[in-house]
């Protein structure tokens, strides 16, 4: 067997929801345990490291705010890749993945907005300003809500899949806007200090808790995403079984 066809077979193996369910069952306990461990370590670091000489204690808000904001963008990126999977490769799990990710992304974006606001009040003196970074993240939050509403409004997953995939891809333009908003426009929000060319500019006292919390949040995302995908597969099975039951009942009624 050539290497290429083996790769295609592997890919289609993963596309089989039954195999995905078996894989999820095996992986989820480990992922959940790793998430818990990283959160314990991350929270311990968050509260035992020093405060900032200017921000004081409020620097600890960053250990939740920054990972939540990163994850809000990563989740949308996962949805955009899934949307490509739906439109280009017609991968059977792609739509399941995009649908399962939306509520999780909405929660992370909500967290980034609320914790940002709780940091902004003591540090900037304002809960909210309409600068480019804050506004573009707020738009991301609205897009998540819109996609959740669209997914819920359409009963037939086969039909809603393509519509929401196109919408997700159009909305992806917002992700680079969020990332570079602090460079393109004059914002109150500070520019990047960790993920930037030339390396992080923040002190290791703050970098460590931030990175451990970022790993914890990422693990949390993947745990929840896989579990939510499993739920979505189950949901679709229930729907198709109910339809099957109705068809069978109709056939029996005709036979009588």
């Amino acid at each position, binding site marked *: 067997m050539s290497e290429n066809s083996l790769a295609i077979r592997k890919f289609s193996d993963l596309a089989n929801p039954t195999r995905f369910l078996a894989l999820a069952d095996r992986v989820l306990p480990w992922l959940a345990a790793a998430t818990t461990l990283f959160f314990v370590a991350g929270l311990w670091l968050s509260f035992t490291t020093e405060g900032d000489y200017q921000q004081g204690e*409020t620097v600890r808000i960053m250990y939740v705010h920054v990972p939540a904001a990163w994850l809000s963008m990563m989740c949308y990126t996962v949805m955009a890749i899934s949307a490509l999977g739906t439109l280009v490769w017609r991968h059977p799990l792609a739509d399941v993945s995009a649908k399962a990710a939306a509520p999780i992304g909405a929660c992370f974006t909500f967290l980034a907005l609320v914790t940002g606001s709780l940091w902004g009040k003591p540090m900037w003196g304002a809960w909210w300003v309409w600068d480019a970074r804050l506004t573009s993240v707020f738009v991301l939050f609205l897009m998540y809500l819109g996609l959740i509403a669209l997914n819920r409004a359409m009963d037939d997953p086969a039909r809603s899949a393509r519509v929401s995939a196109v919408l997700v891809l159009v909305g992806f333009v917002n992700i680079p806007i969020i990332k570079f908003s602090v460079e393109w426009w004059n914002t109150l929000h500070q520019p990047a200090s960790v993920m930037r060319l030339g390396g992080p500019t923040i002190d290791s006292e703050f970098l460590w808790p931030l990175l451990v919390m970022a790993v914890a949040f990422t693990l949390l995302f993947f745990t929840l995403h896989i579990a939510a995908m499993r739920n979505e597969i189950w949901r679709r099975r229930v729907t198709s079984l109910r339809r099957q039951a109705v068809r069978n009942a109709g056939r029996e009624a005709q036979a009588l």
Partner: protein
Amino acid sequence: MMSHAAYVFASYAVAAVTVAGLVSWVIGDGRARQRELKELEAAGIRRRSAEAPGGAGR
């Protein structure tokens, strides 16, 4: 004016409540769907494609 510690506490409290809510929603949703699948199976409705590879999921 709240103290700085109050803002930190509020941030972690909101984060804890949001994450706990999300986790319990995902677990609850999963349990409800599994219960429905078990009920359907108990009623004798099974997936025709259960054994065939590639035909599962819908």
